[in-house]
């Protein structure tokens, strides 16, 4: 299982990459990581945090609905979308990952991120 690890201050969150379902996006993410970027909060989809990556990837594994822990790529904005709770559907995303560890971390920091975006570090972790 290969994953993206988010370092948010002294806390972390692991996202399993769905390499079979979204191979090009996952390969593209591997290329641009590690990365320091700005974590923000979605404005109209309720419990979702987001960060931008510096490349466009093609649309793949597009879904119409998501669940807590799902991770999407919003192709129109080169944005990784992490759904950490109750979602009000806003736009279609490509399903590219699943939070395996740290969903509670995201839930706990989300109000502060909504108040003020912050920098995070994102790394690629190859796991056996």
């Amino acid at each position, binding site marked *: 299982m290969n994953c993206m690890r988010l370092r948010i201050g002294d806390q972390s969150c692991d996202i399993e990459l769905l390499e079979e379902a979204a191979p090009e996006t996952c390969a593209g993410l591997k290329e641009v990581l590690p990365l320091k970027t700005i974590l923000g909060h979605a404005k109209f989809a309720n419990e979702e945090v987001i960060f931008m990556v*510096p490349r466009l990837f093609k649309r793949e594994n597009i879904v119409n609905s998501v669940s807590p822990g799902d991770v999407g790529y919003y192709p129109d904005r080169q944005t990784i979308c992490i759904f950490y709770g109750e979602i009000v559907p806003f736009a279609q995303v490509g399903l590219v990952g699943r939070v395996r560890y740290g969903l509670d971390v995201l839930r706990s920091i989300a109000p502060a991120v909504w108040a003020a975006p912050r920098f995070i570090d994102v790394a690629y972790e190859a796991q056996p």
Partner: protein
Amino acid sequence: MSQAIKQLRSATEAIWTRPPAGLEALSAMHRPPSGDLPKRLYANFDAYWLAGILYQLREMCGDGVLDGATLARVAGRTSEIAARRLRTWGLDEAAGTVEFAADELAGAKSPGALKDILSELIVFIDRIHVWIDSTIPWAEMGDMGPVRIPRIEQ
């Protein structure tokens, strides 16, 4: 990688973790009668929609509906106008990058070259947007006032 792509990518790297020049000055800019926040909202959506429109033009590259020369011209002209708006908000360096890209877009020799330039420009503009967006107090703005619709007095 072409020189234009390298230049655009380098411009994005320069603002990836450091705010673009002019971002703080945007707040202090005197544009009466509006105060600080309206300028940031306008600048925010100028950048947001430029990236959004360019993304749609990129999607049209090679679909055969518009020929490459027309797409290149539309993309170049759209970027040129958006650059002017960024200058209005004091984001001169960003505007310079968009103007450079506008020239490159207008002169793109193939749909593939056009698509590559658009891809890099979209990322650059979206990063500018992320920075402007992060200065806006969205959480506090939630319920600032009722909807007001002007009515014709009878």
